[in-house]
């Protein structure tokens, strides 16, 4: 059994059997478009970095897959197969209350990450798995970084906002507001306000963004 379940830009995910267990093999395959030296740098750095970040997230109380093995030379990570559905696939079709509950819950989880100095780096609804018992598991920490700066927190959440706008544009506003409510519950109200202000600043900074109040 060796089934490609996701072909991403950064890595491929395979569903494999490993010691009688269904696991996910995350392979960072060489990218033909990059020169070898840069390619090697990026792949090994992300392979070392990701399991660290996943463990840190667990310490922060954010559910993440269990890591079974890391192979830096080959840029492979073997981890738990999380059974569930991508939030991206289900969010638009959920009943309104459930959609808001999930969004708020996601906001709380992001808050926990940030509170513990973890920046996810790729907060999109494709990187969140909704399990059958209503839990949300965060995956893909390949682009994460350690930081407690307002700036990086703002960029992280700005990405989440943009993900809602591009994939869930109909509910983008209410969902992101719910995310920020959940976020404010974990971090201080004051902190959440500062981050929101930062997001606005980032939006203004982006090229050609109209300064609407």
């Amino acid at each position, binding site marked *: 059994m060796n089934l490609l379940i996701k*072909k*991403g*830009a*950064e890595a491929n995910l395979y569903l494999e059997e490993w010691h009688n267990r269904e696991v996910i093999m995350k392979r960072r395959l060489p*990218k*033909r*478009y*990059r*020169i070898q*030296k*840069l390619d090697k*740098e*990026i792949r090994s750095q992300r392979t070392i970095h990701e399991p660290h970040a996943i463990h840190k997230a667990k310490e922060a109380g954010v559910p993440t897959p269990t890591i079974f093995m890391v192979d830096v030379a080959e840029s492979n990570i073997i981890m738990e197969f999380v059974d569930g559905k991508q939030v991206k696939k289900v969010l638009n079709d959920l009943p309104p209350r459930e959609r808001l509950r999930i969004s708020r819950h996601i906001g709380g989880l992001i808050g926990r990450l940030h509170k513990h100095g973890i920046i996810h*780096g*790729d*907060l*999109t609804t*494709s990187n969140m798995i909704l399990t059958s018992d209503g839990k949300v598991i965060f995956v893909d920490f390949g*682009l994460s970084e350690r930081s407690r700066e307002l700036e990086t927190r703002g*960029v*992280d959440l700005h*990405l989440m906002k*943009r*993900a809602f*706008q*591009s994939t869930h*544009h109909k509910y983008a506003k209410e969902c992101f507001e719910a995310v920020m409510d959940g976020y404010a519950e974990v971090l201080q109200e004051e902190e959440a306000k500062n981050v929101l202000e930062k997001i606005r600043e*980032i939006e203004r*900074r*982006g*090229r*050609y*963004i*109209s*300064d609407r109040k």
Partner: protein
Amino acid sequence: MPKPNSVASYCLGVESTADDFGVAILSFDGNVLSNANSAYVPEKGGIHPREAARHHAEVAERVFTEAFEQAGIKPQDVSLVAFSQGPGLGPCLRTGATAARALASYLRVPLVGVNHCVAHIEMGKLVTGATDPVTLYVSGGNTIVSAFEAGRYRVFGETLDIAVGNCLDVFAREAGLRQRRGAPFGAIVEEFARKGKTFISLPYTVKGMDLSFSGLLTAAVQLLHEQKHRLEDICFSLQEVAFSMLTEVTERALAHTEKPEVLLTGGVAANKRLQSMLNVIAEEHNAKFCVVPKEYALDNGAMITWNGILAYKSNITVPIEKSFVKLKWRLDEVYAPWVRG
């Protein structure tokens, strides 16, 4: 004299967002009859908005005349006028808008305000035959990954600070390189990069789908000042890092949207190394790779004209008294009913 809705309808469009002043005439079925242009070339440094606008005003008459002569039609044959309404430099935009308004009012034909970034994508589709692409639009002022989704071109990734073209330009100036007519800074950095052999690590900054080039620029300029490396190697490393970042983000958008094409446009699209990188990811995702030829990838009047025609066919026009320029008009603010999808 053809009436506005007759078969032989012509649209005239004016582009003036930055250093280029362009006037083009297209028939409503998308034939480019003329695409005249005059570029403002600063004596040194970057574009000075007021100086560029003065250039536009000075050459306007000549460029308009050229457009009509090339097209072989008279002003009275024009049934629609389009202009770049934004985003761009205020003085430049206003100069083009004033000319467009005057012409539309004199001819008593409708006026359409066009978004410069959307126009780049639409022109790219017209000349390459792409139908529903993930577009990487890279120039001195813009770095955007976009694809159409539910009525609008959405932004899937963009720079958080400076544009990639700006990064290359500033680096080239710092390195004391000179641009020549027909060989802008980007082309000169590319020439040097081709002779590079040793890769030097530089900051690679991708945040989700967004990019940052300011740290890369600072680090590359520092390497220059250290005077320990060959300029060819620095140019090579700078290009490799910047373009790998762009390619990674474009591939992520492609994987996410599963679109059938990758479209590369803007001034930096002429770079062969960037083209080859994007070609690789297009192949791997079974998408067709389309590069917009230079004439239509750089800022040009034809793209404004074509987008004007598309908008007009969807009943979008703007009354002259409401045709203010919009300096910071995002492409995802534009409702694009002419696109099927």
